[in-house]
């Protein structure tokens, strides 16, 4: 097996601060290499360093050997597309939003490979057929679903015939069913060369197999055969990562006094349309006070729309929604958002936002401190604004803000999908625990059936 890529003591610095500790690795032909770690562990920096794509101000030390030769950044950049390619995070952002899908692949054959126009088109269509995009070639990226756009991006990126593929979080934001397809596609595309994948998803690492590196805060923690390492992890951090996978969770749904609790909301034969498309029809269910209800389904099936409809943010097209609990004020029906920073105003500090709320609803300020302790929020967080705290902290702060209003119903729209597995587990647990304690019903949306299975009393499948 020939070594395609060899790194010797590669480290990344900003000024004198080390962001990525020196590390060495080899990428061999036919043996995929996976780097596993949380966001902020320096995984993406490593990929950027290999490609020669590091932002200004960051410096690399150590040697990067490509195809047996030490190359400068310029020499490595000359290999882009033909020999070495990187799939950036969320590839639909790197597709041309206005160009037909098939043309985006065709251009690679035409201008990178130098084929004639007709031949390129034929090859591009053939490629799209192979990834299951027959008949979708004429669509623009915004007309494709997330998974389809991902497949298109991978096809376009690999059409240049590159042997070394670097995939940075290729499955970020995808449903479980789509995720497996992408992993298979990546494997198929790289069987002539090799694949270096960066992910925080343990199951992706498991599927890819090959060699596995676990990284934490810029350091290499553990290294070994993927199957061995994941089955018998040595390092505590690796164990924590594996335990944070929802399929490995123990049931965390707390018991509710089901018999004694009253109905909070009854939906009868609900139909919802959006943009002229029927999302679902004739859906009936009952949510009880303090109950945790999960919604599962693929993206685009109306999970979030259902939640919004229950909160009266969207009109229902047919059916009836009855809210019981007459004493509850409108502001006790609340929502937690998918992307924590977008749900806060960044113009003032978090403390100011909290004060606004305290002032508006005449909340007892003494309740804040114990809740903050329960949610493990450091006191200093209140002086910062929403852009300078981490996603996990911000989501916990959102829970704090919601709980102060004594909600009766909380719609959590994929509250942890943008968080690391370890943080996600923690946030989900806290949410369920505290909401049940406050006798608040939670509607939890997730694209991960395992997570819903472990946390909810009732599951609605769309």
């Amino acid at each position, binding site marked *: 097996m020939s070594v395609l890529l060899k790194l010797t003591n590669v480290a990344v610095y900003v000024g004198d601060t080390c962001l990525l500790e020196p590390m060495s690795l080899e990428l061999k032909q036919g043996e995929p290499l996976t780097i596993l770690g949380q966001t902020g562990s320096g995984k993406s920096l490593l990929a950027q360093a290999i490609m020669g794509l590091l932002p200004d101000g960051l410096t690399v030390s150590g040697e990067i050997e490509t195809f047996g030769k030490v190359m400068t950044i310029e020499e490595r950049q000359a290999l882009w597309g033909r020999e070495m390619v990187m799939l950036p995070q969320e590839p639909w952002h790197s597709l041309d939003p206005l160009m037909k899908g098939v043309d985006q692949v065709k251009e690679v054959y035409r201008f990178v490979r130098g084929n004639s126009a007709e031949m390129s088109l034929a090859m591009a269509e053939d490629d799209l057929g192979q990834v299951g995009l027959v008949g979708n070639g004429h669509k623009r990226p915004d007309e494709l679903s997330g998974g389809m756009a991902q497949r298109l991006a991978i096809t376009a990126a690999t059409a240049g015939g590159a042997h070394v593929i670097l995939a940075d979080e290729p499955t970020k934001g995808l449903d479980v069913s789509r995720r497996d397809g992408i992993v298979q596609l990546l494997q198929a595309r790289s069987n002539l060369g090799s694949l270096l994948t960066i992910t925080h998803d343990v199951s992706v690492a498991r599927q890819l197999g090959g060699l596995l590196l676990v990284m934490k805060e810029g350091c290499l923690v553990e290294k070994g055969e993927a199957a061995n390492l994941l089955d018998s992890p040595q390092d505590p951090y690796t164990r924590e990562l594996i335990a944070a996978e929802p399929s490995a969770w123990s049931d965390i749904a707390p018991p509710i006094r089901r018999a004694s609790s009253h109905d909070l909301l009854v939906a009868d034969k609900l139909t919802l349309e959006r943009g002229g498309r029927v999302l679902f029809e004739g859906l009936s269910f009952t949510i009880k006070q303090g109950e945790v209800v999960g919604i599962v389904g693929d993206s685009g099936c109306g999970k979030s729309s259902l939640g919004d409809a229950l909160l009266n943010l969207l009109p229902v097209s047919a059916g009836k929604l009855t809210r019981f609990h007459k004493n509850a004020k*409108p*502001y006790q029906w609340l929502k937690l*958002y998918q992307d924590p920073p977008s749900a806060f*105003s960044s*113009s*003032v500090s978090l403390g100011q936002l909290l004060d*606004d709320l305290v002032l*508006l609803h005449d909340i007892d300020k003494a309740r804040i401190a114990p809740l903050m302790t329960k949610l493990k929020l450091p006191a200093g967080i209140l002086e910062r604004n929403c852009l300078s705290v981490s996603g996990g902290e911000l989501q916990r702060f959102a829970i704090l803000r919601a709980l102060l209003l004594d909600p009766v119903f909380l719609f959590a729209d994929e509250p942890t999908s943008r968080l690391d597995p370890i943080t996600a587990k923690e946030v989900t647990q806290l949410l369920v625990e505290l909401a049940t304690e406050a006798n608040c019903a939670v509607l939890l949306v997730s694209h991960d059936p395992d997570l819903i299975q472990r946390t909810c009393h009732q599951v609605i499948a769309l």
Partner: protein
Amino acid sequence: MMKMKKSQWVGLAILLALLAFSLGGMAFSPYSISQQDLNAIMESPSAIHWLGTDHFGRSMFTRMAHAVGLSFGLSLLCMFTSSLVGTAFGVWSVWGGKKVDVAMGIVVNILLALPGLVVVLLFAAIAPGSFLVLYLAISLVQWVEYFRVVRAVTQGVIQSPARQSSRMMGFGRWYQFKRHIWPAISPSVFTLAAFGGANAILTMASLGFVYVGIQPPLAELGLMTVELFPYYSEAPWLLAQPLVVIALMVFAFHLLAGKRA
């Protein structure tokens, strides 16, 4: 509030210096703007007349101070009025629902179909020399720009989870405006205001130059330019004064606006 760049500070400093000159001149000059002395016409700057005298022997220093004051007064008034009106209507058009938006759209398109200077000229020709009419006309032309920018930005903010979340928690409209909309639009509004100030000065000077703006004997930068124009070869320093000041004011406002626009 906002962090200003060095160039913006320079712009502000020039404006403040001009304002100080104007206020100082109006307060302390022993001459009035129309006090003629035909024995001393077109004098060069001296200890008695710091900036010389014009073709009627009037003190240029006094006249310049009043002219700058007038320009500042008008530009600031127009700036405040048009930004306030434009911002208010812009937010209202998004918040008030479809009907309001359509109605506002029609009004704005009518205004946009007419060239700005023509509208102002029309108003000025109806009532020549009226400061009030000039002010109304310029504001009428300028608020449209604020409206369009504010409306576009507000549309995004209205849709944002952050505002939705605040609304669900029971916060009122003023709070939503203060915390969500204003932080998003304020940089654009400030930039537009700085450009608007410069435009108001230029418009007023243009009208003075074609004799439909402020009327003699009042001192106004455009009017002074056209009055002193016949004497450009005998007394170039006199003609240069209003021109340099107009250029400086516009330059300073543009510096203040910063690079983003």
